[in-house]
């Protein structure tokens, strides 16, 4: 505290009365007003609706809050209904999609970053990097459009496979449920590879160049340098991102499923998010949709919090 006294006008906050402090900070609160209105209306007001999951909610003309308070309480009935019926199928689809996505989209950016670091020509490097995150900026509508066009019966991929003689009958990719998970996983990877590589690239650019020079002197070739310098250096980043990815396992993505899925393969394309949406908003089973959504939120929250605990243990500091 004595050190601070050199700078004269430091106000010790606890000595000023609260009213005075609030008045002094009136402009800080003023600046926060739009955000506060937003967070209350957009984030917290909908949380009240989670109660819907335990009731038999039916909208009427009396308004949302009136309906909510007057809806008959049914306890965990909707959850039981979910677990007894579609739970197995929906969880299978959700887990397969996200695990397959993880399988592709996790190592791909690491490979991209490590290989880009090995490119000698700066222009080539910049070009490949810039190209790689172009898909990140386009909407899922356009991305789905691209995938559906390329994977169509008369699409480029079928043309290519036919031309190479790998298949003798055109594959109808979107009519085959098992293929859908792979398509989503590849689409997710395609869209995110460049974006995710940036974090690894920035970690790699922070590696001391002397390490490589010393390795060079010791006669280590470039392959050995990758395995003994580059990869160990980005290992902490890899761990953190892997744990975070596991924390987000239930977030399979929503738009891509909705856009690329179709009724013929609904038993494969339906994940927690789309299922909750379909029952909650399209079929008008508000309480049921909310219950499924709440189930997902709670499990996700636990996963993310555990992931954060683990990273905190590994890194010595929490992510948030």
């Amino acid at each position, binding site marked *: 505290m004595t050190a601070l006294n050199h700078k004269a006008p430091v106000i010790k906050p606890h000595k000023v009365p609260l009213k005075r402090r*609030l008045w002094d900070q009136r402009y800080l*609160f003023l600046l926060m007003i739009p955000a506060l209105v*937003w967070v209350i209306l957009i984030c917290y007001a*909908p*949380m009240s609706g989670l109660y819907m999951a335990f009731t038999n909610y039916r909208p009427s003309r009396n308004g949302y809050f009136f309906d909510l308070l007057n809806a008959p309480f049914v306890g965990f009935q909707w959850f039981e209904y979910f677990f007894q019926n579609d739970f197995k199928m929906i969880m299978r689809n959700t887990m397969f999609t996200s695990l397959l996505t993880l399988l592709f989209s996790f190592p791909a950016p690491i490979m991209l970053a490590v290989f880009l670091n090995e490119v000698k020509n700066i222009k080539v*490097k910049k070009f490949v990097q810039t190209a790689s995150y172009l898909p990140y900026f386009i*909407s899922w509508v356009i991305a789905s459009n691209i995938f559906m066009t390329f994977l169509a019966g008369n699409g480029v991929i079928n043309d290519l496979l036919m031309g190479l003689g790998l298949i003798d009958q055109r594959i109808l990719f979107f009519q085959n449920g098992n293929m859908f998970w792979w398509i989503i996983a590849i689409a997710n990877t395609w869209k995110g590879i460049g974006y995710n590589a940036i974090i690894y690239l920035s970690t790699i650019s922070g590696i001391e160049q002397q390490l490589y020079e010393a390795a*060079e002197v010791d006669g280590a070739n470039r392959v050995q340098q*990758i395995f003994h310098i580059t990869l160990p250096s980005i290992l902490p980043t890899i761990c953190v991102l892997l744990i975070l990815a596991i924390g987000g396992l239930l977030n399979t993505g929503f738009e891509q499923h909705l856009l690329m899925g179709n009724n013929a393969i609904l038993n494969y394309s339906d994940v927690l998010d789309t299922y909750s949406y379909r029952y909650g908003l399209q079929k008008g089973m508000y309480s049921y949709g909310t219950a499924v959504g709440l189930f997902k939120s709670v499990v996700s929250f636990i996963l993310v919090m555990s992931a954060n605990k683990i990273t905190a243990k590994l890194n010595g500091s929490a992510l948030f």
Partner: protein
Amino acid sequence: MSTVTVKPTVNNRIQRKRTASEWVLDIIKVLFLTLVTIVTIYPFWNIFIVSINDAQDAVKGGLYFWPRIFSLYSYQEILGRPTFQDSIIITVSRTLIGAPLAVFCTAMCAYSLSRKEMVGHKFWNLLFVFTMYFGGGQVPYYMVLKGLGLLDNFLVFIFPLIMSVYNMILIKSYINSMPESLFEAVKIDGGNDLVIFFKFVIPLSKPILMTVALFAAINQWNSWFDAYLYTSSQKLKPMQSILVEILNQYQTGSTTSQQMSNAKAGMTVTADSIRMAATMVATIPIIMVYPFIQKYFVKGIMLGAVKG
């Protein structure tokens, strides 16, 4: 920024002969990077050439690298449709109104939350950060929007997006990195928090504000799901929604190369050619601002990564 440090080692490396394992590495590297580049660029190119090819000719297939018969009629057709023109106006206005407003509100909140002397500093921060990890879900959210009278209202594209907690944290950590003495000096000269925010914080945090603005603009440009759920009138549909409609028609297979008008040669459109042209109209602006975006984009991710 990530490219700068690589050069010196590379120069050293060239002088030695490649070992067998280095040959393997180089082959895998070249194959992988070529594959990534082709896979990310070629789809856009392919859609582009099909969109500028004569529609009837395109039905024959086999268009891979270059258009056979050049025609811009599909563009003329799609851009001439009143529904599509309306959708362009909606998309452009939600981007131009929504993105600056989002940056402004997010930055104001970020500044307040960055002041540690603020009464309830920890509480306010938690209030916002908690929403990143837990939400009410789609159904209650829909009901709330309905209660607020935002359904089928242009404001539903603006108000829910005036803030983003993630972007707020980005800006906040940027403000936190500014010297505390700056703020104290302004206070001594009698400036209040509004003066600090408008005269100092905004100009000084321009790089991060640009990043957030670009993210917000791209987000607005690409959004369709809010329009799908919360609006019903055709007048409010953004461009991406029109694309979704076109895509759904394609998916149900009801439109395999049905011709829509054919006066002279080169004046035909097919469902496919319209789909390609509409896709390009939505994509070309993104590709055009891409050079600007990517400069700020990389910076933004780095800043985000610093947090982790």
